[in-house]
């Protein structure tokens, strides 16, 4: 009896041991699983961080553009006017907003016209971004009185105004900004070692460049003939 009991005890113990081992193993596997999954998540997050900031937005926009292209192709095949279809499907106020933003000036650079026009263009660019200090303005108006504040060309206001340090700083900063923008308008060309040498001198090179600028459009044919050796 006791032997049977003890053997059953032993087998129970063995079974319990087995069960515990199995449980331990399952815990181990679960821990390993979780570790693996955590690691995968970390890698994913790291990759997501390293993506450029507007990746999501950019991808969405690209997808949208692709869809637009496909729809446009379909409309072309069916012979419909895609723009008209689109207009019929947009809401009225949104359509108005789009129209308004298009009508607002885009101000493309039309190249050099003459110095006065370019100065005017610069002036308009600078003044549209100017934000006047209205509080200071109204204070100054109170202090100065209307006679002096709204002068005609004859009222004597010379010498009545000396600027504060901060406003002179603003002026100097603005002048320097204008200078840096001016530098952008002429870029340094790269040195081309394979270009033809038709000069003996740096001054000669510049002069040849000037000649090319003015006469190339007329002498292209002749130059090609000379290069080839015979006329066409």
């Amino acid at each position: 009896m006791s032997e049977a009991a003890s053997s059953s005890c032993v087998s129970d113990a063995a079974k319990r041991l087995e069960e515990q081992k199995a449980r331990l193993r399952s815990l181990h596997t679960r821990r390993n699983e979780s570790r693996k999954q955590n690691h995968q998540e970390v890698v994913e997050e790291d990759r997501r961080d390293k993506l450029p900031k507007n990746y999501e937005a950019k991808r969405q926009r690209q997808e949208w553009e692709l869809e637009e292209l496909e729809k446009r192709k379909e409309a072309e095949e069916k012979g419909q006017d895609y723009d008209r279809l689109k207009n019929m499907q947009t809401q009225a106020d949104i359509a108005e907003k789009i129209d308004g933003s298009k009508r607002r000036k885009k101000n493309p650079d039309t190249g050099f016209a003459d110095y006065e026009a370019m100065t005017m263009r610069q002036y308009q660019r600078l003044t549209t971004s100017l934000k006047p200090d209205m509080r200071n303005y109204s204070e100054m108006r109170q202090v100065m009185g209307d006679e002096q504040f709204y002068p005609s060309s004859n009222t004597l206001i010379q010498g009545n105004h000396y600027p504060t340090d901060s406003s002179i700083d603003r002026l100097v900063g603005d002048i320097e900004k204008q200078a840096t923008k001016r530098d952008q308008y002429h870029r340094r060309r790269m040195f081309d070692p394979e270009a033809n040498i038709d000069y003996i001198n740096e001054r000669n090179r510049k002069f040849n460049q000037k000649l090319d600028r003015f006469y190339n459009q007329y002498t292209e044919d002749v130059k090609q003939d000379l290069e080839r050796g015979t006329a066409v």
Partner: protein
Amino acid sequence: MRLPKKAAKVKNKAPAQLQITAEQLLREAKERELEIAPPPPKQKITDPEELAEYQRKRRKEFEDNIRKNRSQIANWVKYAKWEESVSEMQRARSVFERALDVDHRSITLWLQYAEMEMRNRQVNHARNVWDRAVTILPRATQFWLKYSYMEEMIENVPGARQVFERWMEWEPPEQAWQTYINFEVRYKEIDRARNVWQRFLHVHGHDPKNWLRYARFEERNGAPSNARAVYERGLDYFGEENMDERLLIAFAQFEERQKEHERARVVYRYALDNLPKERTVDVFKFYTIHEKKYGERAGIETVIVSKRRHQYEQQIAENSYNYDAWFDYLRLLQNESQERDEIEDCFERAIAN
């Protein structure tokens, strides 16, 4: 000994075996680099005497360049810029003044001079330079623009205003007036802007576009009654002989925007009655659009009928033997069931030809 003749006769006239090309000659000449002098050895300046020596040398170079070519402004400007870079303001000023003695009409000189003063925080010096520039060359818009911009940057708005007032005394072109107006609008001085607009129209009122712009301005700043007054004054200004269709069309469209459709119709009819035939095309177009949007059927029909009548009249006036035009005209009149008298008149005229 026999001296060689000046132009020895060529015996062998065949081309040589090995020819040289012009390109090769140029390349060899360039690579010889005859004129490129090696750079002078770099010197470190250690004490004030050496600095003075270096500056004296640079100044001599600049003065030599000026002596070689006095009228080249770049020589003067580089000299003055260098003096500025070594913080010798008085010398830089004197260089600029000498340059102005040579050529006081050069805009770049004045601009560089004023910019130098501004960059070095010399506001009153800069004002002096700008005043002189503006007095000597009043038609150069750059000076006025940059002067007023400087005063605005320094927050001397009355000063900027006075600069603009002085400028407007010269009655500059439209864009200049527009900058003054934008300046006033920037500081929310709409009344003063109105004043400027009116003075502008005194000067540049011959172009109807300016009247339209003023009216637009009034409309946008929330004073439609003023805008109406502007349109009416414009019509008075031009009078019957010089009437411009753009003004009338814009007036009618303004009334449309103000939802005054009867007035718009009146304006359109006035335009049709008083303008010569060639200029009524646009008027018709806009009138039909207006009627289609806001008018009754009868209104639309009358407009269209009168438009086509005008067309036919024109064709007939050109060529009185244009039978097709006559027939179409008569058929139109009959279809629209106009007055019997009119149809009869028309028939008479056709037969008279």
